[in-house]
């Protein structure tokens, strides 16, 4: 029997209201996160990844409006009760945020308050959500730093005294401060060096196994997700175009956009591949073309593509039963007629 998802986003639509019309940043996106699972959300800048995640936590302010759909949260602490996040009043939301769903924000360089010591910022989180004695709260904060392998004497440091990697670890410690069930990580390692990035990712995986939270990991670097995530959702122009296990995405990507992404990064190992990248740039969300929004950049595009309905369908013949793609025409491993946006043979 399948495990019930801890966070279920269904048919969520979010738009930015503007004088020139709505920018439909997220369009009917459904995504679920099971307990202890790492789901990767990949896509280019402006594809709506962050908007989706922040919208699901109701962190967006006008002009952003949620125009449809629902977000359901089922945590252990809520004893099986399902909570509709979109229906909650502000005080109810406050109980939910951080205690149940925490976020590691993009760019740790700016997310910490530069004039407060690390200890005070962590204490603030702990005291806001837990009722502990002063002594216990301090002990908890110190143990949080242990968790992310930062020496305790750094508690008295200001953010500028820490390296980029350490600041990012403090952000992770802060997200884990009150033991959440879901942690959303928005490009947590983008600004870091590869070596530090790897250390932090290793730490995230270890903490996840120890504490059992689920992770929604947002990044534009698909190569990272292939190694890190259990499942990967690929987003383009506000819509999901493919969802599959990391293994299926790596060995049999179905959507041409996913194939393009996979063919965009140089690999260090194995034979040199012919890299194609994805020609062109993402579409204007104010005036999306009819049918599939990827058509102008797609090597497989035909007239049929402008008439299709963008829904995720099971990929025929896929080994992963949960493998869905928005493209009904292209089969995994297909070659584009004009050669652009194809995936060349990956060493098996």
């Amino acid at each position, binding site marked *: 029997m399948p495990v019930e998802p801890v966070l279920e986003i269904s048919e969520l639509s979010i738009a930015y209201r503007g004088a020139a019309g709505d920018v439909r940043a997220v369009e009917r996106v459904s995504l679920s996160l099971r307990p202890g699972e790492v789901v990767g959300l990949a896509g280019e800048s402006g594809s709506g990844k962050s908007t989706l995640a922040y919208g699901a936590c109701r962190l967006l302010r006008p002009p952003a409006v949620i125009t449809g759909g629902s977000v359901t949260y089922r945590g252990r602490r809520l004893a099986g009760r399902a909570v509709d996040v979109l229906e909650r009043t502000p005080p109810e939301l406050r109980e939910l945020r951080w205690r149940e769903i925490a976020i590691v924000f993009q760019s740790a360089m700016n997310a910490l308050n530069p004039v407060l010591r690390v200890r005070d910022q962590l204490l603030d989180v702990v005291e806001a959500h837990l009722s502990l004695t002063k002594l216990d709260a301090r002990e908890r904060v110190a143990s949080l730093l242990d968790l992310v392998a930062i020496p305790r004497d750094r508690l008295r440091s200001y953010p500028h005294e820490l390296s980029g990697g350490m600041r990012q670890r403090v952000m992770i410690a802060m997200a884990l401060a009150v033991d959440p069930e879901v942690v959303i990580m928005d490009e947590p390692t983008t600004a870091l060096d*590869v070596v530090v990035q*790897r250390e932090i990712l*290793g730490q995230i995986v270890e903490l996840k196994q120890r504490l059992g939270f689920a992770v929604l990991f947002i990044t534009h670097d698909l190569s990272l997700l*292939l*190694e890190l995530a259990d499942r990967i959702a690929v987003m383009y122009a506000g819509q999901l175009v493919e969802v599959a296990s990391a293994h299926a995405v790596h060995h049999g990507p179905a959507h041409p956009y996913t194939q393009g992404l996979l063919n965009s990064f140089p690999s*260090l190992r194995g034979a040199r591949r012919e890299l194609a*990248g994805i020609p062109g740039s993402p579409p204007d969300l104010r005036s999306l073309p009819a049918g599939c929004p990827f058509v102008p950049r797609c090597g497989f595009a035909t007239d049929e593509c402008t008439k299709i309905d963008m829904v995720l369908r099971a990929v025929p013949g896929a080994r992963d039963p949960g493998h869905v793609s928005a493209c009904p025409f292209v089969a995994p491993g297909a070659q584009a007629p004009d050669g652009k946006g194809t995936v060349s043979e990956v060493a098996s």
Partner: protein
Amino acid sequence: MNRISKGARAHEEARTLHAVVESTAARRGPLAMRAGGLCKDFAIGRGRGRTVLSAVRDVSIDLHRRAVVALVGESGSGKSTVAKLLAGQEQPTRGSIELEGAPVEVSGRRAFRAYKSHVQMVFQDPFSSLNPVHTVRYHLERPVRLHRALGEGVSAEDVVVGLAEQVRLTPAQQFLAKYPHELSGGQRQRVAIARALAAEPSVLLADEPVSMLDVSIRLEVLGLISELRDRYDLAVLYITHDIASARYFADEALVMYAGEIVERGPAEAVTQQPAHPYTQLLVSSAPDPDALGSVLRSGTREATRASGSALSTTRGCRFGPRCPFVQDRCRVEAPPLVAVASDRAAACWRLDTTAPDLVSARGGGGVEDMTE
């Protein structure tokens, strides 16, 4: 170790290193820029607490026309300082820079401007390297007027339109009228490249030109630089922390750690068979989709090690504190850059352990032999 053998060793090093530089040079176009033994020291603190940080120590780079040299390293390794030295924005503490065979003296405004028309830079962040209150046309027209002698019947406008088309900002007229905020990151970086080309340089210094861009856009920009290198006979220095992109994009790779070159050689060889422990760490840190059940999956992690120190008081190998192969000798004596193959060199005392294949392939003259 006695004094005589030390002198003999230094001589041997100089000879082998020279051989390395010579053999890589043979395959390229003519030499455009040569930097020899570059050092840059920064003073930290005042009075008694004053120490010297040697941000760049003894870095030698040859930039040939139609060749891309990648300078790979983590933040703080001194790669951007090298770019600033080469661009004439900082004065080296020691060492020499030659442009087309002539020593470079950049003193005063006029000399700096003349130098700039030969050596141009592309910066990391296209969001802050373009002036938000000016159009694309202004950004391209200014360097054209400053650096180019326009012939009869050639207007600056023609040149500017040509530049925009070169970097595939088409239709040019439409893009030239735009302001930076109306462009995507990739388009902005292409404006920055066009701006650099406007001066008709012989050397292009690209400081992390794609690290702020989306993965899907990176290839396009790197491909564009490659194409322009061939068309304009450019010598390119590509500074990056992404060693995988160096494999695809560069001919030669130099790996920098704490201000020093620790390994150099053909990009493919350095990335496929890294000799120095630091290069090995960089290569193993790159995401590897094929490694199922990898470090990330199993969640085991290495202990976080201290980063290397570039303080001049540091003794021994600067990578020592993070190195899994560290020995007593590494803590006392800094390893020199020695040849490990005809076109490769690495600075490590433990090459017989870290790269046994390379050392044995060389036969006879092992690394240890030179020191006895």
